[in-house]
């Protein structure tokens, strides 16, 4: 992350403010910063989304390719994640500097998204044991200002919603083998059902209270954070504790409850926005970075 130096006096100031449910930028402890979501920003991909959360900017591209299914699960497709912490975010990520953070992020994403409960992986199967769709989800971090997990999960959900996979027709050719034909029609596409895709909520413990969507400054004052992935029904699919400090079991319960509340409330506005954007169709003016 971009390094932020916070003095002791600033830390005390932030701590006291949070104790009274007032953060430095005026938000309450469970408020998110201004979030902007836009899909279909990169045309070379099968689905893409750009999310700006305060100063954090994330771009996700999804490419679908035909591959061989995993030997243990022959009738399901799968997702492959790659997180690129680009040097744009901070000069420390130049060269191989961003690899550590990138690997950590992508490992968590595998746990959260690559399972049958989040996405119907069986719909990605073409012919069991031989061919399946592999979705390569590439996350590009453009600016880091805290709360990467939340921004990335919202972007992934939006990108998967936007993904259009060509329909496949299997025919048997003369030699007895299978021939795969991809539909050329740009409107004949398969869409993914993203109802159950969870969103990740990061809760930072600062003092005795937990805070949602912490900026880098607030992160510097916290001891530890809890990452929770919540579906739209309020079901928790994955929990992880990150940070150098230790957490009390009661705080973990409290944070989990808060995370469930916040996460559940995040899904419906997001789906509404995505459906609204989709309904504009061709009339939508693509803004991307030019706006």
């Amino acid at each position, binding site marked *: 992350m971009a390094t932020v130096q916070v003095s002791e006096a600033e830390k005390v100031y932030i701590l006291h403010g949070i104790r009274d449910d007032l953060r430095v930028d005026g938000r309450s402890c469970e408020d998110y910063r201004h979030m902007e979501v836009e899909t279909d920003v*990169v045309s*070379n991909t099968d689905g893409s989304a750009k999310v700006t959360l305060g100063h954090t900017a994330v771009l996700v591209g999804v490419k679908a390719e035909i591959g061989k299914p995993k030997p243990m699960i022959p009738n399901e497709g799968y997702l492959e994640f790659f997180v690129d912490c680009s*040097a744009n975010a901070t*000069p420390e990520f130049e060269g191989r500097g961003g690899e550590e953070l990138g690997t950590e992020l992508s490992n968590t994403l595998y746990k959260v998204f690559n399972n049958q409960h989040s996405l119907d992986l069986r719909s990605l199967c073409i012919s069991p044991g031989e061919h399946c769709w592999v979705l390569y989800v590439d996350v590009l971090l*453009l600016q880091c200002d805290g709360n990467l997990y939340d921004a990335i999960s919202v972007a992934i959900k939006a990108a998967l919603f936007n993904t259009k996979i060509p329909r496949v027709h299997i025919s048997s050719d003369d030699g007895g083998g299978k021939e795969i034909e991809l539909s050329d029609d740009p409107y004949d596409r398969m869409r993914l059902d993203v109802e159950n895709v969870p969103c990740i909520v990061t809760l930072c413990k600062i003092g005795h209270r937990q805070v949602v969507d912490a900026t880098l400054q607030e992160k510097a004052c916290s001891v530890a954070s809890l990452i929770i992935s919540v579906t739209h029904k309020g079901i928790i699919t994955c929990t992880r504790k990150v940070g150098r400090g230790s957490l009390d079991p009661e705080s973990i319960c409290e944070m989990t409850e808060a995370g469930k509340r916040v996460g559940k409330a995040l899904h419906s506005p997001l789906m509404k926005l995505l459906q609204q954007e989709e309904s504009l169709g061709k009339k939508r003016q693509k803004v*991307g970075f030019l706006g």
Partner: protein
Amino acid sequence: MAGLELLTDQGYRLDGRKATELRKVQARMGVFAQADGSAYLEQGNTKALAVVYGPHEMRGSRSRALHDRAVINCQYSMATFSTAERKRRPHGDRKSTEMSLHLKQTFEAAVMTQLFPRSQIDIYVKILQSDGGNYSVCVNAATLAVIDAGIPMRDYVCACTVGFVDETPLADLCYAEESGGVSSLALALLPRGGQIALVQMDARLHQDHLETLIEAAMTACKGVSKVLDEVVRQHLQEASVLSRE
């Protein structure tokens, strides 16, 4: 070359442009608030993001600092989803390293590095979508980013890739033209003085055609510089209107 007609008899190219026409250039400066300077530039379907940090103290080895001027450090990388075939490594491969060195050479010619001895200027360029002319789009985006960072330069640096087909130079090649076996030349120009910062070509071309090709490239670059100038003035106007209020 046979196959796709890169230039029809009426003088139209694959995407309907004429031989000397450039693709549509759209740009915006100051895209990211955290960096010292940033810019986003689209040239046709090629999209690039450039970010500048600096001038700041030397990072890493102090011994590499130069006593009389600043060190310019460039990194060129492509997003994994930028090309039609998914790229496995965003940077670190030979092509990206070569591009980074070219960018470094280009900007060392333009940026007034003698004003910042013992310091470092970082220029990071990311290609979000690749459709030909990657080097040129990077240079144009990076120029805007350096101007946004307020680092003094001798002149705008404008670049363009040109190719030679059927005795005609084609300005601003797209990916289909570049991979169609056209001899392409990339040129970076400082337009006001007409100074060339970088020329690169690795294809076979008859010596007699070289001068026409370079002339065509310089004209195309001057066209790009007009657009970049517009963008900078527009940005300045917006910024001054905001600060006045």
